[in-house]
């Protein structure tokens, strides 16, 4: 637990930044070392050549003794931290350097004096054959400066690492605190409290966005769960009724039946009841399969208008027998991609609704209009209609209007219609349209040609 923050993304990022900072410090340090080295060497060499020039001038104007005089003056000068040497054929005449083999030009060399080793950079010259002068500066100072720069850089490097660890720990601690809270909420939700939501700080940062997305997902899941438990409740409830009826009938048949004919009738009624229950299951399963949506593979191009004409042909005798009229309104030419069988079932459901749930003499009209990238197929009737406040409920599974409870059916028709429409990317809308009756519109989105 104590080193858990080392494994957080926040800490990893801090460590990365610290690493980059440390590398920059090192590059800067190396750069500084090169620059200072160059500058100090240049300075020493400038002083050296000035000193040599002075000695040379002295020698040129008044000879050897004046050169010695100049060397001694330079050595006594306040700003002089350098070294000088004047020697005649290997014998030192003046200066603070041990005698050496003469070398001309700029060069550096090391020597030890009083147990200290020193490094000198400077310029050597012959004033005349045999008379040699050298002026130079101490490189030890350069080494000191460089060591100090190196020291500062190392301090900075160490500080960078420390700051990185501290800020990484801080960032990951605050990250961890929030993710721990999220994880805890998730666990509580898993324990069954579906109403809980992840904390959102309101800062709009990435964690907030993640929490919001998860919260939306939770809301959706909760809605689905509620729908699901609603449906299972309804199914359990709706199934109890026919199964209870079935049981009653069988009980009564056993008690009352006298003749084989009595038994046969009772059994026929029981079989019909069982078929009704199976039909309910079939309808529910079909909706579930369509909503599962593995059916798009059966999509093919089809003419919606032709399909509606066939629907009219199919249902016209049925409508006539029910005392209704089934006619075609305006049919625009519309091609869509879809599952023919399912669309036939969709329109069958709507037309059967209009036939079954309206009084005799109702006129039912099928129409198909294209407008603004959509094609609207409508089944409308001039029957009594459905109050607006009931429109949404009609799409719920197993919902049945009071008025239609005596009719055969499971209250699944429009739920199935909605599922099929949804599979086709279409929407279903109920409208009263200001006229008497009910219009069901299925609005297909047309693909751009």
């Amino acid at each position, binding site marked *: 637990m104590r080193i858990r923050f080392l494994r957080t993304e926040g800490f990893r990022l801090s460590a990365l930044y610290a690493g980059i900072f440390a590398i920059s410090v090192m590059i800067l340090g190396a750069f500084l070392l090169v620059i200072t080295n160059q500058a100090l060497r240049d300075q020493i060499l400038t002083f050296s050549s000035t000193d040599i020039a002075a000695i040379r001038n002295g020698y040129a104007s008044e000879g050897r003794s004046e050169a010695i005089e100049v060397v001694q003056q330079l050595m006594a000068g306040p700003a002089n931290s350098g070294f000088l040497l004047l020697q005649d054929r290997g014998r030192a005449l003046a200066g603070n350097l041990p005698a050496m083999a003469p070398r001309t030009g700029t060069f550096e060399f090391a020597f030890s004096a009083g147990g200290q080793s020193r490094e000198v950079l400077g310029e050597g010259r012959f004033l005349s054959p045999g008379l040699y002068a050298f002026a130079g500066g101490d490189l030890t100072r350069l080494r000191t400066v460089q060591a100090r720069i190196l020291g500062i850089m190392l301090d900075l490097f160490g500080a960078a690492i420390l700051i990185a660890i501290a800020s990484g720990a801080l960032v990951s601690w605050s990250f961890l605190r929030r993710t721990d809270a999220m994880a805890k909420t998730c666990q509580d939700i898993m324990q069954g409290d579906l109403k809980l939501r992840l904390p959102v700080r309101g800062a709009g940062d990435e964690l907030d966005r993640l929490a919001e997305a998860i919260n939306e997902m939770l809301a959706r899941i909760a809605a689905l769960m509620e729908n699901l438990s609603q449906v299972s409740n309804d199914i359990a409830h709706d199934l109890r009724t026919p199964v209870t009826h079935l049981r009653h009938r069988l009980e009564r048949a056993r008690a009352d039946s006298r003749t084989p004919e009595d038994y046969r009738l009772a059994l026929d009624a029981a079989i019909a009841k069982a*078929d009704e229950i*199976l*039909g309910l299951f*079939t309808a529910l*399963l*079909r909706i579930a*399969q*369509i909503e599962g949506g*593995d*059916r798009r*593979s*059966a999509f093919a191009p089809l003419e919606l208008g032709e399909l509606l004409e066939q629907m009219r*042909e*199919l*249902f016209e*005798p*049925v409508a*006539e*027998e*029910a005392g209704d009229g089934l006619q075609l309104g305006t049919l625009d030419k519309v091609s869509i991609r879809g599952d*023919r*069988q399912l669309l*036939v*079932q969709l329109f*069958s459901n709507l037309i*059967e609704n209009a*036939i*079954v749930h309206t009084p005799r003499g109702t006129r039912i009209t099928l129409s198909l209009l294209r407008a603004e990238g959509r094609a609207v197929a409508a089944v409308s009737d001039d029957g009594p209609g459905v109050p607006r406040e009931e429109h949404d409920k009609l799409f719920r599974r197993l919902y049945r209007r009071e008025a239609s409870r005596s009719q*055969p*059916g499971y209250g699944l*028709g429009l739920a199935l219609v909605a599922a099929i429409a949804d599979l086709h990317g279409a929407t279903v809308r109920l409208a009263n349209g200001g006229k008497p009756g009910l219009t069901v519109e299925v609005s297909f989105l047309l693909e751009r040609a």
Partner: protein
Amino acid sequence: MKILLIEDDKEISAHIVYALNGEGHEVSVCHDGQEGLKAARAGGHAVLIVDRMLPGLDGLSLVRQLRAEDNHTPVLFLTTMSGLNDRVEGLKGGGDDYLVKPFAFPELLARVEVIARRAGPRDSEPVRLRAGDLELDLIRRTVHRGGKPIELQAQEFRLLEFLMRNMGRVVTRAMLLEHVWDLHFDPRTNIVETHMSRLRGKVDRGHGTELIQTVRGSGYMLRAD
């Protein structure tokens, strides 16, 4: 006729055997796909009834295998309601018909009879169908009874054609919905009955014998005798 039933559910197979025996059919049963394939290869069956879900070898693979071996015994698939594309898949895989469980026995019996006919000697596709004094011309799309022409709508023609092709056999409502209208669900309104009543009005009304008969609890039958 001799029927091979390949179905792993013992209770359902017992019921099917009982129903088929009642109609005088001789049924042998296999509860496993491999076993069923062996029995089917041995031959001698007029019809195979094959469940889609079987241990050992699933029904679809079994039938594909048979068809690949040039065995064309008619096959009726049984299935529990599962994938929506199952029916198409089953028919493409070599099945002759498809029945979703749970089903009523008259439905099973009618379908077995109808697919068994397909195994019979296949004449070249007939040009005319005849039932007594009723004659249907498949090329000209005309119908005559007793020499007098009868005007039928396209779907009435298809309905009569299906009845005549299955003359003497029971056809169920579901079979008519599937074959005449390509409807694969149970409608809430009496589509078949109303269309049938119109067809009867045109074909049978005013003639001495009723060719189209209702078979109680099962469906319809066209008989010429």
